[in-house]
């Protein structure tokens, strides 16, 4: 039930939300904060773009977005990578200083969850920048997009960061049942592509419905979007909830929507929209693709789409992502939005939970900080985490730390592992469900879970030689001092 509640934002956050309406606005804003660079030299599509993307993403705190506009063989074409590749870039999007600690970004996202008023504006199609150009015959994706191979053994050229909009094939007029999600797209020909989804995901469900009932499934593949869209499109919302509404709520500012030729809603300021239609019951050989666990998925038969038209802004930017062996932009893009729902679900039953870090490989490893209500309590919290919607499949390794250990500061987590863990007090739960593409699975889809309780001991635990712990100063005061030191290093006063 919508309560029309809007989260109050800081003046800085409001200013960012007001001026960032598109990818190009955000790139300009990042540039003003030294967080976006144009690569000055000519690059070959392979391996240069892959290598520079990896280098940009290696700096998790302040790696920049990178724009390529001298791509050899693709004169006049532009690519942007690593737009969400550092926490500095995410902090700027949320109106915070770029060196904001990850823990604070996490709590800012949690805080914005309280908002539930959709902020959507309609723009007439003829006034939408995305419609500055339209191609509906002789469509050639190889000519429209500077496509390239993301990882060396991928089966082809992938569009890895597009937000795909689709309407429910049986209820095409229902706005809420319109789905927006990120699915991997392999270009198969000048006007064909495959789109990978599984029956458990909204898009997979829509594909099944369309083919069962012989109904058309029309999609709009949005490339180069408002930065909130890929960040929040990756967050699971209910099937009848709109990702557009959710992204606008999180930004606290309106998103501009227009209508595509095929009737789906699209972002009016997006760089390019490829409209396509599912070729009922047709499949193409897809993959491998270097996936988020850092291993290649297999080669499989995947539903095929045909392009019906392409709309794009003048001089469009092909925004893409590097994904593969971590750390990559994929981890930064979805990490906080993976952590936040687990935290909220745990917090309902266990107010002692202080924070959840499920940044690693979509939560294959998670770290929960919690105050022990009684001895062994952290283990109960871990069990509850395994029963959350995301935990059921993904949370494979769980580390529990005290409430005064910042789970986003791995040096602190390592302290807890070093000094709080008793090797005879870990739990292995055998034969649990597992993400099929986890390379550590015993068989795809089944494997073992690990819980390491690295919280402090309390009676009736055997306290052993447990000494009095040092109360290390932490929190906003220390964060402010760190920022001051950072400014002093840069020559400030």
């Amino acid at each position, binding site marked *: 039930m919508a309560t029309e509640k809007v989260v109050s934002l800081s003046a800085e956050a409001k200013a960012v939300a007001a001026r960032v309406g598109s990818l190009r606005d955000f790139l300009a804003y990042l540039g003003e904060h030294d967080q976006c660079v144009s690569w000055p030299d000519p690059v*070959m*599509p*392979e*391996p240069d773009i892959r290598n520079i993307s990896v280098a940009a993403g290696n700096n998790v705190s302040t790696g920049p977005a990178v724009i390529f506009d001298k791509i*050899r*063989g*693709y*004169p006049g074409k532009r690519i942007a990578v690593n737009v969400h590749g550092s926490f500095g870039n995410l902090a700027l999007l949320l109106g915070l200083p770029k060196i904001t600690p990850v823990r604070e970004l996490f709590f800012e996202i949690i805080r914005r969850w309280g908002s539930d008023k959709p902020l959507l504006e309609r723009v007439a199609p003829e006034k939408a920048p995305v419609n500055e150009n339209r191609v509906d015959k002789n469509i*050639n994706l*190889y*000519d429209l997009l500077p*496509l*390239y*191979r993301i990882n*060396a*053994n991928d*089966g*082809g*050229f992938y569009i890895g960061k597009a937000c795909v909009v689709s309407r429910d094939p049986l209820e095409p007029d229902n706005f809420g049942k319109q789905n927006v999600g990120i699915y991997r797209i*392999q*270009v*198969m*020909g*000048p006007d064909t592509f495959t789109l*990978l*989804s*599984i*029956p458990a995901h909204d898009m*997979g469900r829509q*594909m*099944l419905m369309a*083919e*069962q009932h*012989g109904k058309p499934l029309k999609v709009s593949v949005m490339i180069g979007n408002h930065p909130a869209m890929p960040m929040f499109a990756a967050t699971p919302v209910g099937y009848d909830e709109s990702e557009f509404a959710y992204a606008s709520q999180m930004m606290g500012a309106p998103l501009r929507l227009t209508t595509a030729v095929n009737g789906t809603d699209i972002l009016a300021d997006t760089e390019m929209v490829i409209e396509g239609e599912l*070729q*009922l*019951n*047709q*499949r*193409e*050989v*897809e993959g*491998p693709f270097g996936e988020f666990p850092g291993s290649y998925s*297999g*080669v*499989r*038969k*995947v*539903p095929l789409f045909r392009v019906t038209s392409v709309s794009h802004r003048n001089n469009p930017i092909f925004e893409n992502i590097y994904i593969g062996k971590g750390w990559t932009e994929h981890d930064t893009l979805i990490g906080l939005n993976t952590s936040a729902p687990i935290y909220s679900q745990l917090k309902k039953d266990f107010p002692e939970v202080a924070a959840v870090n499920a940044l690693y490989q979509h939560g294959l490893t998670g770290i929960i900080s919690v105050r022990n209500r009684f001895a062994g309590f952290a283990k109960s919290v871990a069990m509850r985490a395994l029963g959350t919607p995301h935990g059921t499949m993904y949370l494979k390794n769980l580390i529990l730390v005290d409430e005064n250990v910042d789970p986003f500061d791995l040096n602190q987590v390592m302290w807890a592992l070093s000094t709080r863990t008793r090797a005879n007090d870990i739990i292995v739960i055998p034969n649990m469900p597992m993400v099929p593409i986890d390379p550590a699975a015993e068989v795809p889809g089944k494997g073992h879970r690990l819980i390491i309780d690295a919280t402090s001991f309390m009676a009736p635990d055997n306290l052993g030689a447990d000494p009095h712990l040092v109360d290390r100063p932490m929190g906003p005061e220390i964060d402010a001092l760190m920022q001051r030191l950072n400014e002093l290093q840069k020559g400030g006063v």
Partner: protein
Amino acid sequence: MKTICPRCESTGVTQMHAGMENNQILWRVWHCKDCAYTWRDSEPAESIDPKVRPAWTKMKGVDFDSLRQVIPPAHKPT
């Protein structure tokens, strides 16, 4: 020499696109109609040379109809 697919070694390959520089062709994009592999002839050998590509990526002799379906078709294609 005839272009073959670096992955399944089929000769059923089609040129999809050519990248131009100073009015000359700099590279070509190819696609295999059998295994759907797509490549650019300017790529490093690990992606396009069958002699260098890792053994696990090879698809010579694979029955493509036997590959796993992620979403099985509801009906036979029309």
